[in-house]
């Protein structure tokens, strides 16, 4: 920034601060200002946290929430696509694999058709305990 710009800004910022919201106020003006703002009683937990910090000799600290808005509104959709891509098994889209999966699925369905209630040792259940 050159000297001319700096001199200009000294002049301009002093002017803007006086008209803007950041002109220094007298106690009377501040009193009037505070009368105009709406009272929003603080939540009890916030007060409790501040008092507890002071009791512990620490400055009450509030960690600002991270702002990810600059990433853009469609970012979630892109990430969702990425997740699908990552979760897909190797070869899942391969024609041969898909054919094998279909064969296994049909075989399982045929087995279910033969007996749905056969026990692990191949015998039929007796019905006891039902």
């Amino acid at each position: 920034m050159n000297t001319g710009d700096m001199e200009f800004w000294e002049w301009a910022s002093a002017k803007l601060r006086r008209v803007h919201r950041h002109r220094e106020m007298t106690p009377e003006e501040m009193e009037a200002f505070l009368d105009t703002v709406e009272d929003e009683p603080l939540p009890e937990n916030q007060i409790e946290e501040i008092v507890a910090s002071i009791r512990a000799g620490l400055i009450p600290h509030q960690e600002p929430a991270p702002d990810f808005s600059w990433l853009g509104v469609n970012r979630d959709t892109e990430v969702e696509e990425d997740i699908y891509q990552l979760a897909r098994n190797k070869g899942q889209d391969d024609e041969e694999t898909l054919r094998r999966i279909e064969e296994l699925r049909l075989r399982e369905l045929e087995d279910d058709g033969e007996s749905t209630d056969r026990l692990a040792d191949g015998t039929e259940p007796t019905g006891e305990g039902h």
Partner: protein
Amino acid sequence: MDDIDIVLMMMEEDPEGVRWLLQKYGGKVKAGLRVKFGYVLAEPEIDEALNWGAFKAFRAAQSYDERRSSLRTWFYTIARNAARDILRGEERRTAEPLEHNPPWNAEQDDEPPLDPRKDKALSDLKEAVEALPRLQKAIIEADLASGGKADANRLAQVHGSTVNTIYVARSQAMSRLREEMRRRGHHIPSRAARGHTL
């Protein structure tokens, strides 16, 4: 609870005094901070200014003078200064005892507020600020609110930018404003003419 009792509790280093202070005036002070700084500070930062203000009020209770101001405006002034410190990026996370900040700022302005309707230069200046590109305008507004130069690191974080970009954008904004004022025919008095020395 009377104001003077709250102050006495804090003077005796009883944190319950802060509880009373916040219950009685915390809501108004936070609302005041939001009005003045809501366009340059995020909500958690406004909370932080309030928290830090409460801590400083507790530590500075000895300096409170009821003849100069009410407890409410005294607390608001401390919280407002804390908000400016956040904008300027001044260290605030240390657990070391803080030095007392004079609640009434030494730079208090005794001049009356300006009326843009009666001051063409001011009116043009405001229009020029409004017309700045988004980032440049945000930097200028943060600078004005901070009472000096707003912290470039914080601005970079908030706007998803880099510190260098902030410096460049600030410089561009000032040049652009100056050029716009010159184009509109305003003569900007030099520093020497305004009574400053280089």
